């Protein structure tokens, strides 16, 4: 034997790792076989080769197989592997790697002196508070509250500016072009004004709101907080007996329900996957936000941010309660899921990164307005232009006599106990199945009582193109100033107190009057019930398609019907319960 024996059971020499008595014994056995072939030993260090063979390195095995004596060495190695696996009840490469890591860890401990405090990074120190078992949830709720306060309060001046610009100069320009083409006072003018402008324009008004929402979410996301929020909520889900990983798809659901449904694929267990798929739609996606902003501005102007935050929170709460109920009944499963999450370090968000998120997401929202919402608005306009009663002609009859109003009126009695059984509200909920932004665009169309071209002309003074452009720029500057003044509203400081209250728009007034009438004087309660209904019922057709793909037809129907029933029940409790308690 050419090697010196440093230990009784090993041929280790110098700076080498001890793989344990049994493994070292087998290494020596293989080394002894290798030593019989000098040319192999010359080519490869025998200890290294023995370890590689125990680790079943495929490349080394292949090289050895073609050498003289190689097969004999491989046979010895295989016997050693079988022997060690019997002893350790695990793969030999795991045993070797385990010893290797143990040795490195020991070496680091002996040579590097660091206290626990030294090892804590800045991210670790922040995480001790942000992901704290008790503080984590309130911090998450506070972050969410700030997001919606910023979204609702600070975006308001820009929302008013876009509303005035679309309702004023842009509408006037389109009407002027139509009249230049000789199509004034025809159904084409009505299609553009009452169909496309009222529908698409009604949704485009909310672009500033969406931009502020995406700004807030991008700040949380790029700073690394969103991953902590997922971890904190995930731990809560685990404590409540739900699959911890369920919250990840739910977090995605705040942006869009469709990718959130695809994210359920990360759950291995089918029961957990279906259960999470059923809960994901209760997370309020961005498309529902315009509905909340509109209704909060009409009925709860002083507490708009808090109302919107409450709705998002209600969505999470509904998902958790329903999840616990289903997990203990239909989806009973004792198998525990275990996983570990990687939290990225905290980062300072960059302006470029934030802008990229805002641009991408707002761009998607706008593209959707010009595709799905425009098509829906045009179809809706046609359905509202076809009279089925009253004897009017196409596009000239009262919309209350239209085919669409007739269908909506047939369904509306089912909504009477909820306080919003007008045909206008029913029609908005019906088209809301297509996409939630369409709820607002439909309201813009069905309540467009004064939006006839003649009415627009009467309301607005004749201005030139350049005067309009000047007005748009001036009001934009004013909106920017008001937005800066709005920032202190997040912490409750109102710099607008001295100013007169703004007049509600025609749509806002019409919605308020409609709810006042349908709820018999309890409009605020009916509005709250309506928002709860929008939160809970089917998100959109794309989500239904994703559900069908991910959960199958049976569970898709369970989901659609279940959401409708739950939406009705929750809205009923809000409206009737509120009346019983003397609220609103």
């Amino acid at each position, binding site marked *: 034997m050419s090697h010196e024996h440093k230990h009784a059971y090993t041929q280790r020499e110098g700076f080498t790792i001890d793989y344990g008595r049994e493994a070292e014994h087998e290494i020596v056995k293989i080394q002894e076989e290798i030593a019989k072939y000098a040319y192999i030993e010359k080519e490869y260090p025998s200890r290294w080769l023995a370890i590689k063979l125990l680790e079943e390195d495929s490349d080394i095995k292949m090289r050895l197989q073609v050498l003289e004596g190689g097969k004999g060495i491989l046979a010895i190695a295989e016997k050693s592997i079988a022997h060690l696996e019997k002893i350790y009840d695990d793969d030999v*490469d*795991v045993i070797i*790697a*385990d010893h290797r*890591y*143990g040795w*490195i*860890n020991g070496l*680091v*401990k002996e040579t590097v002196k660091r206290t626990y405090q030294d*090892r804590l990074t800045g*991210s*670790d120190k922040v*995480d001790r508070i942000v992901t704290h078992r008790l503080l984590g949830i309130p911090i998450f709720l506070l972050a969410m509250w700030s997001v919606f306060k910023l979204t609702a309060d600070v975006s308001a001046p820009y929302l008013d500016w876009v509303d005035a610009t679309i309702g004023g100069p842009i509408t006037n320009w389109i009407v002027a072009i139509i009249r230049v083409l000789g199509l004034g006072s025809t159904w084409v003018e009505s299609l553009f004004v009452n169909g496309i402008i009222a529908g698409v324009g009604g949704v485009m008004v909310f672009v500033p709101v969406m931009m502020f929402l995406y700004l807030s979410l991008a700040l949380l*996301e790029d700073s690394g907080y*969103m*991953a902590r929020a*997922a*971890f904190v909520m*995930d731990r809560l889900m*685990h404590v409540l007996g739900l699959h911890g*990983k369920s919250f*990840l798809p739910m*977090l*995605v659901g*705040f*942006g*869009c329900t*469709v*990718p*959130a449904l*695809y*994210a*359920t*694929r*990360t759950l*291995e267990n089918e029961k957990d996957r279906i259960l999470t798929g059923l809960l994901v739609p209760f997370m309020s996606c*961005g498309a529902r936000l315009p509905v909340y902003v509109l209704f909060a501005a009409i009925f709860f102007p002083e507490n708009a941010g808090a109302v919107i935050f409450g709705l998002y929170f209600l969505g999470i709460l509904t998902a958790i309660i329903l999840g616990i109920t289903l997990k203990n009944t239909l989806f009973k499963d004792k198998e525990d*899921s*275990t*996983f*570990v*999450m*990687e*939290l*990225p370090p905290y980062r300072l968000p960059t302006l470029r990164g934030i802008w990229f998120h805002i641009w*991408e*997401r707002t*761009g*998607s929202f706008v*593209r*959707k307005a010009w*595709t*799905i919402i425009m098509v829906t608005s045009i179809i809706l306009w046609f359905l509202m232009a076809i009279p089925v009663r009253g004897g009017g002609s196409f596009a000239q009859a009262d919309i209350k006599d239209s085919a669409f109003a007739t269908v909506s009126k047939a369904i509306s009695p089912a909504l009477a106990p909820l306080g919003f059984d007008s045909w206008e509200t029913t029609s908005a909920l019906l088209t809301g199945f297509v996409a939630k932004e369409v709820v607002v665009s439909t309201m813009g169309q069905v309540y467009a009582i004064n939006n006839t071209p003649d009415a627009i002309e009467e309301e607005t003074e004749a201005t030139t193109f350049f005067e309009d452009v000047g007005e748009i720029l001036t009001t934009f500057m004013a909106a920017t100033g008001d937005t800066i003044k709005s920032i202190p509203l997040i912490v409750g400081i109102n710099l607008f107190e001295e100013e007169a209250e703004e007049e509600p728009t025609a749509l806002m007034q019409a919605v308020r009057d409609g709810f006042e009438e349908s709820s018999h004087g309890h409009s605020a309660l009916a509005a709250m019930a309506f928002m709860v209904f929008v939160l809970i019922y089917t998100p*959109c*057709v*794309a*989500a239904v398609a*994703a559900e069908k*793909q991910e959960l199958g037809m049976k569970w898709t129907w369970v989901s659609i019907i279940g959401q409708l029933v739950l939406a009705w029940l929750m809205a009923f409790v809000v409206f009737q319960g509120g009346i019983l308690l003397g609220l609103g």
Partner: protein
Amino acid sequence: MLKKVLIEIENSKNGLNLNELSHKLNLDRSALNGMIEFWVQKGRLVDDDAEEAISCSSSCGSSCSSDDGLGCSFVMEMPKTYSLRKSDKTL
């Protein structure tokens, strides 16, 4: 040490993250990352590729995909997770 990592993950009842795990086992994060990677290669841990799962398919196109085909712009950056493979739970 390597096995301790897997045992800790298996015994985690109320959620666990890699930072906590590295402090608990008194390990450097870089060393822990290497161990996690080892277990993923061995197939005992599964890298839950959430990004892959939610990369927008054509059925999502009508609702949320971006035109450039880079995926759904509404998807937030998901924290990476590693799950214990069920059949290998008992060490």
